[in-house]
């Protein structure tokens, strides 16, 4: 076989493997960070710095009873968690990690990402429906409403970037930022996309679909063992995916001086992941109606205004 195939295979397994690995590691990293922010050590007993906590958790998840309730819709119940894993991993395919590193270089990379992130919501809704449980159902309904609302301006907020770069290809968008990161001209777009991204990944403060205080665990109340694990990893995958995408779209991707491009990419992504965790540590969950108002009455107009302004400026600049 030719080298390109080997390179492609290395890219596929490297990027996707790294994504899964990082997501798993993030379960530990997040708890450690939360611990520090709450003046306690966090998980530190298993292995050096508690790193093997991940392994311990994985073993635990694998060996727990894989329980499917009698009243569940069995095939859908099993299918649901796989969707989130699959769609998130597919989303990673279009991320340009560095020059020459990345699974695929798609012309419509951005659209592909949007499509994949929309797919992920099926996982939640189907899981909730199949559980046949009132808490799960409520969680599923919230997830559906939340995703539909926040997806609208998620896409819109990116249009500024697309206009400035003149392409949907993520690699080209990164290259278009050589003169300056889009976070400056597209500050509003960045904010809107980042918030929408949090909502898409059901992270605090937008974790209403699982809201453990009111809905026990929302859509995954009935899930256990590795099925729950898949939801769990899916969530962390989506955190990394959103962070990676923000890096790509607004923070110049792999661009940066002195250090190798991959390191730059990971540094930027890691910083954003930390922001995700910090949000969880600091911001309380809003009420459901507040969430909806915030989405439709503030975020959507902001995204539209941003789009209009960007378009206007671009036209004016010729």
């Amino acid at each position, binding site marked *: 076989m030719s080298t390109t195939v080997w390179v492609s295979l290395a890219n596929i397994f490297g990027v996707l493997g790294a994504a899964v690995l990082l997501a798993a590691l993030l379960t530990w990293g997040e708890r450690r*960070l939360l611990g*520090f*922010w709450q*003046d*306690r*050590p966090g998980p*530190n007993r298993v292995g050096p710095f508690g790193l093997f906590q991940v392994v311990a958790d994985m073993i635990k998840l694998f060996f727990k009873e894989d329980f499917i309730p009698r009243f569940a819709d069995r095939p859908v119940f099993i299918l649901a968690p796989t969707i989130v894993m699959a769609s998130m991993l597919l989303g990673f395919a279009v991320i340009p990690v560095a020059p020459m590193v990345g699974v695929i270089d798609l012309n419509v990379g951005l659209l592909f990402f949007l499509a994949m992130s929309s797919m992920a919501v099926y996982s939640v809704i189907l899981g909730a429906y199949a559980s046949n449980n009132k808490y799960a159902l409520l969680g599923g309904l919230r997830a559906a409403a939340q995703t539909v609302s926040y997806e609208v301006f998620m896409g819109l907020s990116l249009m500024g970037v697309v206009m400035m770069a003149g392409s949907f290809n993520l690699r080209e968008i990164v290259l278009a930022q050589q003169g300056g990161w889009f976070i400056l001209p597209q500050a509003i777009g960045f904010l809107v996309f980042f918030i929408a991204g949090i909502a898409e990944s059901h992270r605090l403060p937008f974790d209403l679909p699982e809201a453990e205080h009111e809905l026990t665990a929302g859509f995954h109340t009935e899930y256990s063992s590795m099925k729950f694990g898949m939801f769990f990893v899916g969530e962390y995958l989506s955190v990394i995916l959103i962070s990676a995408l923000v890096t790509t779209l607004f923070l110049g991707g792999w661009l940066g001086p002195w250090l190798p491009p991959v390191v730059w990419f990971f540094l930027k992504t890691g910083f954003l992941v930390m922001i995700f965790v*910090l*949000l969880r540590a600091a911001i309380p969950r809003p009420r459901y109606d507040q969430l909806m108002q915030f989405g439709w009455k503030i975020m959507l107009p902001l995204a539209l205004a941003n789009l209009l302004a960007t378009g206007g400026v671009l036209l004016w600049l010729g």
Partner: protein
Amino acid sequence: MIASQLRSMWLVFRHLFSRNATVEYPDEKPYLAPRYRGRIVLTRDPDGDERCVACNLCAVACPPDCISLQKTEDEDGRWRPEYFRINFSRCIMCGLCEDACPTYAIQLTPDFEMCEYDRQNMVYEKEDLLISGPGKYHDYSFYRVAGMSISGKDKGEAVNEAEPVDVRSLNL
């Protein structure tokens, strides 16, 4: 509103650089004051008799209702618990029983490390709780200040009591 959210994020972030408030407990034992509120003991008065008079106030003060006892009366006139039982698997170590105890019988100790594989072993009876000393209050004896007479302490012999009235005297 946004400023306040950002501020709280900043405040939380700053804790990355502050000392941990927790200690790694089984490896590193924290200092417990001698009056730390752990599990209860039943103490004895300076004469070596049980201090508990089975008044039931601890039981009624107990939020998880985990104390149960039955009053009985000794031949010497003292009230005493026939049984005194505490279910430590329910106890929340709040110390309200110690507060409620009018005779200093119940006192809390710094011991709270009670681990059992069988919950049944968490049920302590009076025999398990009684210690041989007076605990934190060395000199207090309820019957020396109470008005009830017991053998060895007749009417009028308690602290601050006058001689019993002789009804047949003139009582001027």
